[in-house]
């Protein structure tokens, strides 16, 4: 390549040599004008450009602006839109999480912390599912990794706060076994006893608990 000169002709010749260069198109040469022709063709090009912009000016239907807070009612995010990690709860208020921690290992940024505990029978149950949005890149790895489809990404995007610590979310609404384990218990009262309610928590992660990322604050 180095032997090709920098002049236009040499490059053109070289390009032509490459077997008519199948699969290449060359940039068009400059149109040359005299003084008068140059003035007129220049003016013409300017007028053409002005026609384009005037076309948009005269057609208000081409306006693409969406008035955001006003259009909340009609604003729908795509179903796959990833912005808020959520743990769906079914009509009985049960989630699918078994506190296995696969999502926690799958997360590249350590933004998930699964706090597990033992129930009366000694089985592993979910105590608290902490998701730190401030450290999350919404890469969807946790959702993909989850073998029980216990978590999913949803489209709520209005989560701006003034304090970074408020971006820690607790996703589960109760501490206790997952839906599949609970469904084996027929008695609803018995079942409710196993579901220790925990408030939807958002704030400093846990009393006495360090945040998942050291020095993250």
């Amino acid at each position, binding site marked *: 390549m180095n032997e090709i000169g920098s002049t236009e002709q040499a490059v053109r010749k070289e390009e032509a040599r490459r077997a008519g260069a199948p699969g290449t198109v060359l940039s068009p040469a400059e149109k040359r004008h005299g003084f008068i022709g140059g*003035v007129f063709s220049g003016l013409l090009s*300017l007028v053409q*450009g*002005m026609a384009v912009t*005037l076309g*948009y*000016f005269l057609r208000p239907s081409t*306006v693409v*602006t969406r*008035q955001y807070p006003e259009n909340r009612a009609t604003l729908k995010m795509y179903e796959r839109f990833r912005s808020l990690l959520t743990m769906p709860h079914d009509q009985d208020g049960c989630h699918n999480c078994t506190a296995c921690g696969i999502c926690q290992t799958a997360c590249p940024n350590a933004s998930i912390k699964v706090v597990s505990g033992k129930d009366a029978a000694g089985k592993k149950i979910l105590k608290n599912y902490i998701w730190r949005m401030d450290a999350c890149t919404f890469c969807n790895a946790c959702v993909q990794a989850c073998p029980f489809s216990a978590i999913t990404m949803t489209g709520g995007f209005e989560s701006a706060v003034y304090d970074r610590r408020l971006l820690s979310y607790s996703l589960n609404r109760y501490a206790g076994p997952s839906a599949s384990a609970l469904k084996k218990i027929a008695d609803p009262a018995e079942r409710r006893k196993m579901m220790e309610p925990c408030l939807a928590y958002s704030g400093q992660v846990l009393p006495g608990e360090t945040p998942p990322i050291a020095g993250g604050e």
Partner: protein
Amino acid sequence: MTNAIGTTLWQVKTLADRTTGAMPDSPWLAIGYILLGVVAVGALVAGLGLVLIYAERKIAAHFQCRLGPMRVGWHGIFQTVADTLKLLLKEDVIPERADKLLHLMAPFLSLLATVMVLVVIPYSPVLQIADVNIGVLYVSAVGGFGILGILVAGWSSNNKWSMLGAMRAGAQIISYEISVTIALLTVVLFAGTLQLSQIVLSQAEGWWIWRAHGIGLVAFLIFLIASVAEINRTPFDIAEGESELTGGFHTEYSGMRFAFFFLSEFVNMFVAAAVTATLFLGGWMPFHIGSFQAFNSIMDLIPPAIWFAGKTGFLIFVIMWFRWTFPRMRVDQLMKLEWKILLPIGLVNLAAASIAVLFNLYFFPRH
């Protein structure tokens, strides 16, 4: 003075005439007239600022498939008021080691030059503050004074970008002043007077843009292009050149002082449009065609002030249209455009104009 139809036009009695007239009898009345003039100009500047900035934002938005300001008031009509308040409240930063006095003065110098031109423009037959008999000369002389503000701003800011912007502006405005003047001279030749009100009256049979076999049109185009260059708007905004010089001469300005530069830019635009309208589009003169009296009298039904506002508004729209369509020129291309293209064409055009005047060659020649 009578127009083509033969009806007597209103006698132009300007505020300046009234002041001089009142001076011997009652100095207080004269002072009152002066105050009235000052208030009128002040109100005009403020009003222009509010209207033009809003118009610019809305027009730009619709050129770009946007809506523009929509929040403050109906369709954002009070946006400019809100912005002015914000700018008033902002900190006025003066860079360290800047030339303080000049830095503070520059925005006012810039505004002053444009405001002074407002005084001589005939807005309608009865609405003119001072009808100077060398009006055209006054416009070009005082208008060219605006460069001082820009130069001082760039120099005093102690910033290399500002300095570059100011130097660019200096070279640009002084160059384009020549084309402006040559195009002005064409009209002066046609009208045979330097007085702006007389130039308007000389267009009673038809505007100079179409009455002189294309000579007027060429002069109009040159004048428009050179005026846009003189007021530093795209495609000639190299003095600000946002993507090159970050803000050019007003890089270091903030708060109210920046607002003054902003305001003077918009008043400048109005002045350029108004002067162009006065010289080439008949100012407040309705659209007349020679001796078609019936047509002319229909046109006369629209008040002159509306004609003036319409023409000026249209030209302002065109200038904005330029800005929201064209890219910026490079500094050497700008010079080339002036010295190698506009100036030769202007000179040839001026020669053609003198021939046309000599042999009374335009449409509906004067008797």
